[in-house]
């Protein structure tokens, strides 16, 4: 009995160490369509793209590198700064040899959670279920010269040796051209548009203060990233300011505070927003879809789409936004979609889409 206990402990330790070091891919062939998709994304979550690729059907035309690039991102896109957090799966239909599984993915990114939905075909190869990963057509821009006439504004500020009369150039003149307070449950949402009326670029932000019926301040918020902060001359940006847990019925007055600052800026890149239309997605929700086209010669790493919706009187009734997890290569269309609540969709008469861009290593 005295010898038996140490032997049991040693055997248990060896078994536990072995279990901890074993790769799941080597051990767990998928026995169900949902299991195949779950195993694939479990490996993606662990950044084990080689292991994840083991669950991809050989009949597909995706190679391992393309598969990894599809999931981990490329060209400094938002996907390259994200990691998969959750993958919920649901079998849409299934037969003996193939099935369709919907994967609802949630990525953690530098700008908050990013959601993606993929309907994946799963097929039976021998005794195992494998995912037919759709081949992503990677856009490659052919070698060429794109002529650009770059335009930028530089600002000379007053120097330390200047006399006190030499004051800095004035900030650009900006104006809030529309504003609308919307109740949303127990929240108050302020939406509107701001225009740079000047001839120089500005860095703008909009703040709002809600005043209650007793004259007290109910809340102060800013538009944060629900705005295009850099506005070129005559450019209009939507803005949205959310006040969580402040009911509009309690608000007597809204004090708006537009701020602007003169900044150096570049007029490029120009991004076209093509084929904008409101559609219903696979889950039955209204979305505003379209394609973004980078008409300049430099890669835009992280595009940010801002959509403004108007009613039939031209009033702004909603502003939604969304980041695109693909980089915009020159002259290459990239799809985008932003949510539109069903309640709002019924009142939308017109809409306008603008694009913020974040570009690394810009040489302008």
């Amino acid at each position: 009995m005295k010898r038996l206990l140490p032997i049991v402990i040693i055997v248990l330790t060896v078994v536990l160490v072995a279990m901890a070091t074993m790769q799941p891919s080597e051990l767990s062939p998928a026995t169900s369509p949902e299991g195949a998709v779950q195993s694939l994304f479990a490996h993606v979550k662990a950044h084990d793209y080689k292991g994840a690729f083991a669950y991809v059907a050989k009949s597909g035309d995706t190679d391992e590198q393309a598969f990894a690039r599809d999931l981990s991102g490329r060209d400094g896109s938002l996907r390259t700064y994200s990691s998969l957090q959750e993958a919920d799966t649901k079998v849409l239909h299934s037969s003996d040899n193939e099935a369709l599984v919907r994967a609802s993915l949630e990525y953690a990114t530098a700008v908050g959670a990013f959601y993606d939905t993929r309907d994946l075909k799963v097929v039976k190869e021998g005794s195992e279920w494998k995912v037919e990963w759709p081949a992503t057509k990677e856009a490659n821009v052919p070698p060429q010269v794109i002529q650009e006439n770059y335009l930028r504004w530089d600002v000379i500020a007053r120097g330390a040796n200047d006399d006190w009369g030499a004051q800095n150039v004035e900030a650009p003149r900006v104006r809030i051209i529309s504003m609308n307070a919307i109740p949303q449950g127990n929240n108050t949402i302020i939406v509107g548009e701001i225009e740079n009326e000047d001839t120089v670029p500005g860095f703008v932000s909009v703040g709002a203060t809600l005043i209650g019926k007793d004259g007290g301040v109910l809340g102060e918020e800013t538009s944060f990233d629900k705005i295009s902060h850099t506005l070129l001359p005559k450019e209009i940006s939507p803005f949205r300011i959310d006040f969580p847990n402040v009911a509009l019925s309690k608000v007597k007055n809204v004090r708006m505070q537009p701020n602007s600052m003169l900044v150096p800026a570049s007029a490029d890149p120009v991004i076209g927003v093509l084929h904008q239309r409101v559609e219903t997605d696979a889950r039955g929700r209204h979305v505003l879809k379209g394609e973004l086209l980078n008409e300049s010669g430099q890669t835009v790493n992280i595009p940010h789409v801002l959509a403004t919706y108007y009613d039939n009187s031209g009033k702004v009734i909603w502003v939604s936004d969304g980041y695109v997890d693909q980089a915009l290569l020159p002259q290459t269309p990239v799809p985008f979609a932003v949510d539109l609540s069903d309640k709002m969709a019924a009142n939308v008469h017109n809409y306008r889409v603008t694009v913020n861009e974040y570009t690394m290593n810009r040489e302008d």
Partner: protein
Amino acid sequence: MTRIRFHSYFALILALAMFSTVAFAADLRVPATVAAGSGLSVPTSGSGSATLYLVGPGTAVKRQVQLGQDVQLSSDELQNAGHYTVAIGDDSASFYVTAGPVSSIAFLARPSRVPAATPNVISGTAFIFDKYQNLVLQPQPIKFDLTVNDQTTSRTEASKGGVAYAKLDSSKKEGPAQFVASSGNASVRRVVQQVASDPCSIRMTAQPNKSGILVRTDSIHDCAGNPVPDGTIVTFTATDAQGKSTVDARIKQGIAQAQLPASGGATISVASGVVVGNEIQWRGGQ
């Protein structure tokens, strides 16, 4: 009775003291005004040494001087304009130091940017100083020059209390205006950007190319004929069966152009701010 006598003695002593101060002040001969930065020679009488006190704006000097000789107050000691008192021994005198000739100008030009062809829109305020940064209170002629594209508008104003002010029209042509205030050898330059107003009209043309439809405006001007500044946003919109396509193009070298997707039939429009341009019914390039 004792109290009355005491008050009488005190008043007498005070009166004698005041009389003696006035009498002694007359003994130091100084000019009523001295220009800042120029020295001053104060003649003294008597013999032996005495203590010199000089008190003025930002100045307090104490030193031993020899009586019977001229005492020199250096230019460094008389830099700040204002009222000075000099005392040597029991004698004292007062004089004013006035600002010297104009040496520098602090020039406020406002605003930084103005619309072209607007009357009384540019203001310039000049504060004139001597080389010791004393405000020159004596009236001085200040010249204001506003130059755009080699065309100069000038105005001369006399300063009052060290300040001169002028309001000028912006010129008909846009561009960076050189706004100069000068007096004597001193001059200061500021830049006031004169800018075009909103576009007067926008006219665009469209032509097919390998990527779709190339839309381009003619040169965009305001109603005074000035080119609208580069960088101004011009929005092209094409609406067809596939939806709406928009491009926020920037004016570069006077025109704006953009690439719109190919379409079999589309309505193409152009706008900048509140100004709407022409509309094109696109029939696949026909």
